[in-house]
């Protein structure tokens, strides 16, 4: 069974430029998460989807970040414009559903560097 797929793996951009990350969750997983991981820290949730609905986006900086999961399968996270402080690893994860007792499966992440 294929795991969570993310692309690109690495991205280097200049500040004020836009950037987009793509995630394809494990087949059959209804819940999809985007996390931000800074160096030396644990992942922090940005947004959670149940199928195509964003059910928790309280931590998403909506002035510059946006996300979509149009068909309830793959998802895109966008930053426009990027700032220096956005440099981090962006992790996508999925689970069968959002019940607290389900494990989350993480993708390899996209390492973003903003210059």
């Amino acid at each position: 069974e294929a795991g969570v797929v993310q692309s690109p793996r690495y991205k280097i951009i200049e500040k004020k430029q836009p950037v987009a990350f793509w995630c394809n969750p494990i087949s059959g997983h209804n819940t999809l998460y985007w996390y931000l991981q800074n160096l030396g820290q644990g992942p922090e949730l940005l947004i959670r989807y149940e199928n195509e609905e964003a059910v928790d986006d309280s931590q998403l900086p909506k002035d510059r970040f946006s996300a979509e999961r149009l068909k309830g399968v793959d998802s895109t996270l966008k930053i426009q414009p990027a700032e220096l402080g956005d440099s981090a690893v962006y992790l996508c994860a999925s689970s069968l559903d959002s019940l607290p007792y389900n494990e989350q499966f993480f993708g390899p992440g996209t390492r973003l560097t903003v210059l």
Partner: protein
Amino acid sequence: GQQVMQIPQYQHVQEGEDFTTYCNSSTTLSNIQWYKQRPGGHPVFLIQLVKSGEVKKQKRLTFQFGEAKKNSSLHITATQTTDVGTYFCAAFANDYKLSFGAGTTVTVRA
């Protein structure tokens, strides 16, 4: 902010020795999960604890959930180089959001 606090932040271990890392919360937790992230890798689920006082073992790893469900520990015996990485505890409180600790980064001296 982080709901769970992990100590120590770094653990330098001689190969073959044992060590323990701790995860603490000020609130009662419904359950706790542990993940491992290898250097340059992504978090991988290790185990979940649900019951008060629960103890689970995976080979050389022993996981424990406190009686009050406010703390957890991970004990590794006879540390090997394959144990290198960062161990995160993560917990749900009253919502569906999983909050991760800052992790304990383990390095091993051969």
